[in-house]
């Protein structure tokens, strides 16, 4: 009897620990092209359980990494985000100018306005999501 109760408790605990699967969609993606680098912005909307954006790849375009710009008084500081970006359960995360963004460096060739860049977003739980983002100039 005791063993059966422990088994039931363990099963229930496991069930409770199983988080709902994340359902993250990417929208409003855009690339701001500069001569030697580019910034990518997008919005992540999650209608499921929590997830984490680990990294972004821009194969064929250049080296992409997650960056964060922050203001320290009047000083602009930019840092690499090492631990990814958390997307809460049923939450939304917006990457936008002067905040978090994807930076593409070492461009193979300058990105032409009007073209599209293929990006692979790697999520901790949802896996890879591929998107195509339109390229424009600074605005």
């Amino acid at each position, binding site marked *: 009897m005791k063993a059966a109760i422990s088994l039931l408790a363990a099963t229930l605990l496991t069930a409770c620990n199983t988080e709902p699967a994340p359902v993250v969609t990417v929208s409003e993606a855009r690339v*701001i*092209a*500069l*001569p*030697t*680098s*580019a*910034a990518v912005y997008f919005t992540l909307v999650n209608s499921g359980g929590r997830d984490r954006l680990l990294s972004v790849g821009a194969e064929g375009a250049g*080296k992409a*990494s997650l*960056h964060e*710009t922050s*203001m*320290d008084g*009047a*000083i*602009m*500081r*930019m*840092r*690499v985000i090492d631990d990814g970006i958390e997307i809460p359960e049923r939450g939304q995360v917006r990457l936008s*100018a*002067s905040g978090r*963004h994807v*930076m*593409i*460096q070492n461009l193979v060739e300058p990105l032409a306005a009007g073209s599209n860049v293929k990006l692979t977003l790697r999520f901790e739980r949802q896996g890879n999501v591929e998107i195509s983002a339109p390229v424009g*100039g*600074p*605005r």
Partner: protein
Amino acid sequence: MMLRRVRIGLWLVVGLVALVALVMTLMPRPAVPIASSQSMTEIGGPFTLTGSDGRPFSSSRLAGKPYALFFGFTHCPDVCPTTLARLARLRTTLGKGDDSFAIVLVSVDPERDTPAAMARYASLFGTPVIALTGSTAAIDGVKKQYGVYSAKVPQPGADYSVDHTATVFLIDRKGKFVATLAPDEGDEAARAKLERLDRA
């Protein structure tokens, strides 16, 4: 006897407090860092940098028209283009083409920002941007004139970024510094300042 001792003790305490107060008043105040003590009249001044054509560019060429001065670098994909694009947009709303004020970008990364790199960067904004670079010594001189901070920050690989003051300095047509624009200042407030700059 006991009472007398207490009285003497108290007087000693009073004397000590008075002495400490006197020393504190007479001691020179600690120096305030330059950036925050720099008063309006001390900010700015003439400079000579290198234009995007590779030739010397004297600030005297800017006289007669107000200008908005911003420090940045061409490997900056986020705040720098956002700030310059905003200035370009605000200038358009003033409705006088590029007559109302000039947009001047000074590099804080002279190592990578050649005149040609500055020219390519400046050409992206669809409106004239005066992009200046120069020797490290020349750039340091202008940074000092404006109390601007910048520092190289290593990034993974051999790359680096440059942390820097993101304030826009507004200079009137006589070459006098009059106001600043902060990145988090709304477009309405910024537009009002630029209108005043144009009218001054």
